[in-house]
């Protein structure tokens, strides 16, 4: 009995010693956004009791994958409400996986929006358009929250730029997000070009677009791609660039 009490005392004493180290490590985890899972009732409601316990026990990534696979299956069955519900759970569990945010946004802004627009059960076009725009907003929201959680990931900026370009026809915002993507570490080289292309479509921004694209053209052969040359030629005509400063015509 005495030995048991002494053992308990040793463990409690050790517990007091370990406390500052544990707290400091937990604080560092929070500072670096590690194990960045907000353990609250909303999450518990989202993922259920078993999911919550699994997430707490260190199987968050596995659980997120299972839900992701379920979301893909729901997409194949075109159950858009379920796709959205599952992707909300997936991104809540693994907010630092850009792929999940990107896929969620793609399903909503591209697939679900197209399905809403072609919904045979909705005869009124105005309501179909409204539903389509709601899905665009949901997709945009996923990407914006994804960027907030992964600010150095170029893929999410790129996807947001594409969303503005293809769904909102907003070339200025598209150019801005392609530029932000290009500023991220490990960004693909095309992000800079795409930013310039989008700017060239913006009324009033042609001089800036010309400077940006011309700089890329002057970087060398690897940047002189057909679209870049086409947009430069368009801008040269539009801005009345003197013939001596224009890029040469391509040899056919």
């Amino acid at each position, binding site marked *: 009995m005495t*030995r048991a009490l002494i053992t308990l005392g040793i*463990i*409690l004493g050790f517990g007091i010693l370990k406390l500052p180290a*544990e707290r400091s490590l937990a604080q560092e985890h929070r500072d670096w956004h590690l194990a960045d899972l907000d353990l609250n009732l909303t999450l518990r409601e989202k993922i259920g009791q078993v999911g919550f316990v699994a997430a707490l*026990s260190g199987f968050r990534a596995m659980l997120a994958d299972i839900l992701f*696979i379920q979301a893909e299956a729901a997409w194949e069955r075109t159950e858009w409400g379920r796709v959205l519900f599952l992707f909300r759970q997936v991104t809540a569990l693994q907010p630092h996986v850009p792929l999940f945010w990107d896929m969620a946004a793609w399903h909503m802004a591209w697939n679900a929006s197209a399905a809403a627009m072609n919904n045979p059960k909705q005869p009124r076009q105005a309501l179909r358009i409204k539903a389509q725009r709601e899905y665009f907003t949901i997709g945009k929201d996923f990407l914006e929250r994804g960027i907030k959680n992964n600010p150095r990931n170029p893929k999410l900026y790129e996807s947001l730029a594409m969303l503005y370009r293809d769904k909102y026809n907003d070339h200025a915002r598209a150019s801005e997000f392609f530029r932000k993507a290009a500023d991220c570490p490990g960004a693909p080289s095309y992000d800079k070009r795409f930013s310039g292309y989008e700017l060239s479509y913006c009324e009033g921004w042609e001089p800036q677009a010309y400077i940006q694209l011309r700089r890329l053209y002057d970087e060398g052969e690897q940047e002189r791609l057909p679209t870049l040359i086409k947009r430069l030629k368009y801008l040269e005509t539009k801005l009345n660039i003197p013939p001596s400063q224009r890029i040469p015509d391509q040899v056919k």
Partner: protein
Amino acid sequence: MTEQISTVAKYRRFSPWRVLALATNALVELARQKVFYVLLIFALILIGSSVLMARFAFQQEFQILKDVSLGAMSLFTSILAIVATARLIPQDLEDRTLYTILAKPVPRYEYILGKLFGALLLLAISIAVMAALFAAILYLREQSVLDQTWRQMRSGPPGQVDDALSTIRASGLNSDIFVGVTVIFLKASLLAALTLFISTFATTNIFTVVVMVVVYFIAHLQPVAREYWLQQAHAGWISRGFLALVALIFPDLQAFNLVDDIVAGVAIPMAIFTKTLLLGIFYIVIYTMAAIFVFYGKEL
């Protein structure tokens, strides 16, 4: 008489060779219990998941492969650490091997250290095999996707080909995964030390396993209890006392859950990794000391 004195002089209070002999023996015993079948299950999960993932794009495939493999590694090593360690002392008691060992000039702390190192060796071998299997599969898949992409894009502009190939490489195998494997091993070692401690006063290994399963879940909630205890001054003294007990007695297993972030592509800073490593070693040392202390008082 002279011979007797020389034998006593030769006897060392601590011999790493005796600990090694006990550890090797514990490992052989565990291997005979066919605990390595866990590796077979792990291999089947890897094969099964690769079949399932054939429908996904390479980023999704790599992400799921990493999540499932590291998650399965964490699960299996935790189970192995608890189940294998729980039976070490009760088995020796049942077989009466313990009496034979302790009848020899083997101090009890060497016996406990030998058993712990045996369990840690088992965990190290298991995790090394699992990590090698996982790395090989991920590397082969990465090479296959790289080769396929290169063949499809080789006529394209070099810049675009490089971008595509570097995207694939970024999603594939990287050194951070091995940091994750080390943390999984550390967590399993801590569980083994804690299990050994409980088995020193438990009467059956079933009891040890059940207690450890409960401890496993409580220890994952320990940071919640700790923060609530330290921050909620207005809570009743019974609640605060209970939370204090949870915070002081149980280890913080959430500190070792870095794998979820590693597979998400988050680079773990060296300072955090080192602190986690030190905290893990600290827990192992304390629980082993407690196990030795209790074992010294055990009537055999």
